[in-house]
């Protein structure tokens, strides 16, 4: 050991280890193996146990059981059995349990911090100052929701049994994000922690026993992907919540397609970290530390693509290199470390492989000048320069402490580069000019935007992604809604199959012929166009007479319609007032053609009261026009001197597939809410009654709806729905059809993980405003962007 006199010259930090003797003893006492926590009891760990290692020391710290289908079934049964009592408790009673959990997390904060560090490899500074305090915060916040849920969400009910699968990067925090809202809303839970990091979940189960949570309300099973699949696939699970890789998210989406299970996915990211020329560069450099050198870069929302404006790039990278020199990498239990160990040797090898790929592709890897410990899965932090968007490392999530970098010339270019990704989880914008910063925040495609900050989290601020980063939000009001359902949604009789199967050959039977032949085309990009396939199908009236022909759209027509819709970007940026005017005008023009639509509906036989249906369609347009400038976001109380805004943004292009029943009203009930919030729509008209829809073209044209904002196709419902659901440039699909079609749409949506809303073939009474319109429709028509704006001079 150096003398005090020597240290006075070198001014080194010296070792500052956090004691882990209690945790070691706790682990020792459980060395026989950790079982599952089912129905309030720990099972004996049997069978092949999974070894759990401390990645910093490579020591095995425990062995954990692997749940098979039987164990998962026992857990789900326990959760199901506990559900009636738990969901029937008053909100206050549930709040007391959640409060007790929050308090006990705080009482055991050091124990959990040390255990998390030993299990995951992340530094004690982060577990102590970030993970565990956020866990407590999450339970406090949701104790509040438990108290308020009945008042704040009338007509809602818990979803039921929730199957939750969480990752290894923030083990206990992700558990809190899943368990807290589920319990607050009155659900019961089966949760599986990652097999690499099961320890704090096990300890959490002990904490649940400590506070006396009723058995079965939370069940914790351990295991790998197979166990996860057994949970997601269990027929008695009502909701699946997953945080992890986009690939696994896709698998789950396909696996449970058509099951009727609610799903939320929080997946990968490749989030831009944008530094404008007027940024506080020292602050932005420190931002990189918090963005990509936080948690060893194992952060789904890590700002891992640094975009710097050209004029300041040399200075910025110079400063970044200097800053890197003071990073400390090593024993995560040492209180002076910035970066601990990567979660496993396998993960380290994956990171190193990607770094080698980056270098092979011509980028320069700038690594921090650190001596890594000889043992353990440590990775030197750094960043690439000279990366191009075409490079693998610019596209693929490295999930390690290394960022890529690009320079840009203008704000427009920054936005293009920022949005040039499949993902859309988060973004960080650095600028001292509020005009530029907020413009960037508005234009970047991401669920969370931090201005002059990064990786800020709060239980009240919704977190979740756009695009292939998943759907659903965690935190706040919208996070809670993921764990609530509107019971009426599940009622309704089974919808019969479409009455009309398209026939494209001449029909020689009974027919009503107009004086001059009517040609019903498709409506794409503001133009009436003939179907690409050159085919039309005969449409019949209620007494079996042919009443005309409708275009039979094919894949290419869907493609053209989506292209037209994607070009009509202006609709999303006009004011709500503008959109309201257009919707009112639509109602006005519909009203002028009331007689025409009444007779068009009457001849179909699909509308028992055609006058009423037209009247309700007009009324519905008024209702959404009224909402256009009122369905607002919110400002959430998070940290002091921070404005945390939640903005309702349109998805972009939404595909809607209308039902045969109430052919006018059901179609408009789907189109209108999407339009209200600024989406463009590709609508598939009722297969059997397309001629009602084709009459809308002229109404749309005369109502000042810009070209491409509404595109209407007629044809075979499920053929067109499949193309829409598969289309990677469609952001959301709503489907009214049958059970099999619902399954097909959900499975096909996995390609780009678009959000879906399917009715599983349940009829809806479109005339009833509680079923045919409402905030649920509007909520489905937008995605939340949470923007953090700190202020102060």
């Amino acid at each position, binding site marked *: *050991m*150096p*003398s*005090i*006199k*020597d*240290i*006075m*010259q*070198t*001014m*080194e*930090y*010296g*070792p*500052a280890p956090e004691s882990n003797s209690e945790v070691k003893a706790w682990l020792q006492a459980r060395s026989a193996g950790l079982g599952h926590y089912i129905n309030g009891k720990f099972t004996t760990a049997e069978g092949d146990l999974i070894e759990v290692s401390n990645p910093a020391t490579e020591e095995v710290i425990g062995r954990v059981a692997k749940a098979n289908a039987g164990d998962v079934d026992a857990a789900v049964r326990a959760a199901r059995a506990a559900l009636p009592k738990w969901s029937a408790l008053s909100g206050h009673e549930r709040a007391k349990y959640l409060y007790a959990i929050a308090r006990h997390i705080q009482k055991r904060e050091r124990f959990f911090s040390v255990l998390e560090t030993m299990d995951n490899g992340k530094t004690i*500074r982060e577990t102590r*100052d970030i993970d565990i305090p956020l866990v407590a915060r999450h339970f406090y916040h949701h104790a509040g929701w438990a108290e308020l849920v009945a008042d704040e969400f009338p007509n809602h009910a818990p979803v039921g049994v929730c199957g939750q699968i969480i990752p290894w990067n923030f083990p206990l925090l992700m558990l809190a994000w899943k368990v807290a809202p589920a319990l607050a809303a009155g659900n019961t839970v089966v949760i599986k922690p990652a097999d690499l990091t099961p320890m704090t979940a096990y300890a959490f189960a002990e904490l649940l026993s400590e506070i006396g949570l009723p058995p079965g309300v939370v069940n914790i099973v351990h295991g790998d992907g197979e166990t996860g699949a057994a949970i997601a696939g269990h027929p008695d699970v009502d909701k699946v919540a997953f945080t992890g890789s986009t690939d696994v998210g896709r698998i789950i989406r396909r696996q449970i397609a058509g099951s009727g299970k609610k799903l939320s996915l929080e997946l990968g990211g490749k989030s831009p970290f944008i530094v404008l020329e*007027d*940024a*506080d560069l*020292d*602050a*932005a450099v*420190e*931002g990189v530390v*918090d963005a990509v050198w936080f948690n060893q870069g194992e952060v789904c929302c890590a700002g891992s693509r640094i975009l710097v404006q050209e004029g300041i790039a040399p200075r910025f990278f110079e400063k970044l290199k200097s800053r890197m020199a*003071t990073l400390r990498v090593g024993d995560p239990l040492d*209180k*002076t470390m*910035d970066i601990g160990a990567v979660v496993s040797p396998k993960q380290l090898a994956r990171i190193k492989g990607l770094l080698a790929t980056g270098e092979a592709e011509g980028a320069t890897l700038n690594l921090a000048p650190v001596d890594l410990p000889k043992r353990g899965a440590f990775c030197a932090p750094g960043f690439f320069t000279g990366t191009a968007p075409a490079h693998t490392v610019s596209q693929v999530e490295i999930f390690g402490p290394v960022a890529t970098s690009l320079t840009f010339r203008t704000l427009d270019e920054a936005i293009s580069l920022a949005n040039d990704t499949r993902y859309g989880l988060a973004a960080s914008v650095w600028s*001292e000019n509020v005009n530029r910063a907020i413009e960037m925040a508005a234009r970047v495609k991401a669920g969370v935007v931090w201005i*002059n*900050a990064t990786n800020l989290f709060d239980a009240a601020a919704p977190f979740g992604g756009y695009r292939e980063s998943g759907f659903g939000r965690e935190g706040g009001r919208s996070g809670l809604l993921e764990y609530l359902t509107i019971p009426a949604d599940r009622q309704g009789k089974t919808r019969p199959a479409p009455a009309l199967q398209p026939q494209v050959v001449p029909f020689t039977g009974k027919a009503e012929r107009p004086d001059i032949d009517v040609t019903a085309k498709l409506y794409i990009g503001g133009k009436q166009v003939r179907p690409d396939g050159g085919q039309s199908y005969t449409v019949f009236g209620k007494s079996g007479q042919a009443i005309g022909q409708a275009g039979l759209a094919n894949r290419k027509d869907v493609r053209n319609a989506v292209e037209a819709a994607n070009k009509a970007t202006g609709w999303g940026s006009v004011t709500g007032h503008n959109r309201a005017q257009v919707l009112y005008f639509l109602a006005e023009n519909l009203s002028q053609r009331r007689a025409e639509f009444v007779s068009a509906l009457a001849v179909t036989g699909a509308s028992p009261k055609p006058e009423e249906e037209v009247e309700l369609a007009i009324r519905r347009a008024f209702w959404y026009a009224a909402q256009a400038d009122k369905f607002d976001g919110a400002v959430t109380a998070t940290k002091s*001197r*921070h404005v945390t805004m939640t903005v309702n943004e349109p998805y972009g292009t939404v595909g809607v597939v209308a039902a045969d029943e109430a052919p006018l009203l059901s179609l408009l009930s789907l189109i209108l809410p999407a339009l209200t919030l600024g989406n463009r729509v590709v609508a598939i008209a009722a297969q059997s009654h397309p001629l009602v829809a084709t009459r809308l073209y002229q109404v749309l044209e005369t109502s000042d709806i810009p070209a491409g904002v509404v595109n209407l196709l007629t044809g075979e419902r499920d053929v067109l729905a499949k193309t829409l659901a598969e289309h990677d440039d469609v952001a959301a699909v709503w489907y009214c059809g049958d059970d099999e079609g619902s399954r097909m749409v959900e499975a096909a949506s996995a390609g780009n993980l678009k959000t879906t809303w399917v009715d599983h073939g349940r009829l809806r009474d479109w005339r009833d405003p509680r079923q045919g319109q409402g905030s649920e429709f509007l909520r489905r028509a937008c995605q939340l962007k949470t923007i953090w704006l*700190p*202020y*102060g*001079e």
Partner: protein
Amino acid sequence: MTKHFPRPEGSPLMLDWFDGHAVNLSATERRATSLPTRRTVKKEWQAAWLLRAITCIDLTTLAGDDTEGRVQRLCAKARAPVRADLLEALGIEKVTVGAVCVYPTMVAHAVKALEGSGIPVASVATGFPAGLTPLPLRLAEIRYAVEQGAKEIDIVITREHALRGDWAALYDEIRAMREACGAAHMKAILATGDLKTLTNVYKAAMVAMQAGSDFIKTSTGKEDVSATLPVSLTMVRALRDYCGRTGQMVGFKPAGGLRTAKDAMNWLILMKEELGTRFMMPDLFRIGASSMLGDIERQLEHHVTGRYSAANRHALA
């Protein structure tokens, strides 16, 4: 480690070095808050760092009732800031504070009391703390203090110049003061509590360095808000930028509000992380304090004995 460096000479007034430079408050606060949580020192290292802090202290008395006797007492403490038995236990032969800091009329008493110790006498000057006496008088005050034997002069800037953005006036004034200091080292007190914004602090720091300051210093100790970590972070970043542009080494002195051993650790960590180990030495880092030393002594005794110490076991300043 403590290689000598040429005295900073300043530069012409370069507005473009700080024009348009904005300091983000929230980001600065986040960094300042996390600095002491990211680093710590324990055991021998802690003792060494505490001793290092002592060598950086400008032991200060700036009270209206200062007398020769009071200054003598302070100087005696400056010579022997830590009890001899503790020093021996720590394996250190000798340690003294960085300087003794007094009002100009007390300089002669201090010089006499410190004779042969090698400890320099610092004097505040220029109408401390408000700095609003006429410039010729302020310059005369500097010259007086230097004549009395002060080796370091802590000047205060005219806040009006900074608040109105009249950087040329500020530059000229500090230049003149530096001139008046002659061989004595000049520490420019920015009175950051009066400047209010971190952006003002950055700019004023830059001008003070361009005008030839040897040190930039946060506060007089008489403002409502004294030295804070965010303000200090802003100043050392300005210092780093200036050093990067000119190669000149300028020191930093936080003063006002630093009272505990923990404060000393936090500011040493700030210096090490933002500027490097070289900037933890007394020729580039000073802490303006009066009560901090007592807390450090108690911590050192705790390190030696393992028992928590009491103030009355250590000599008064």
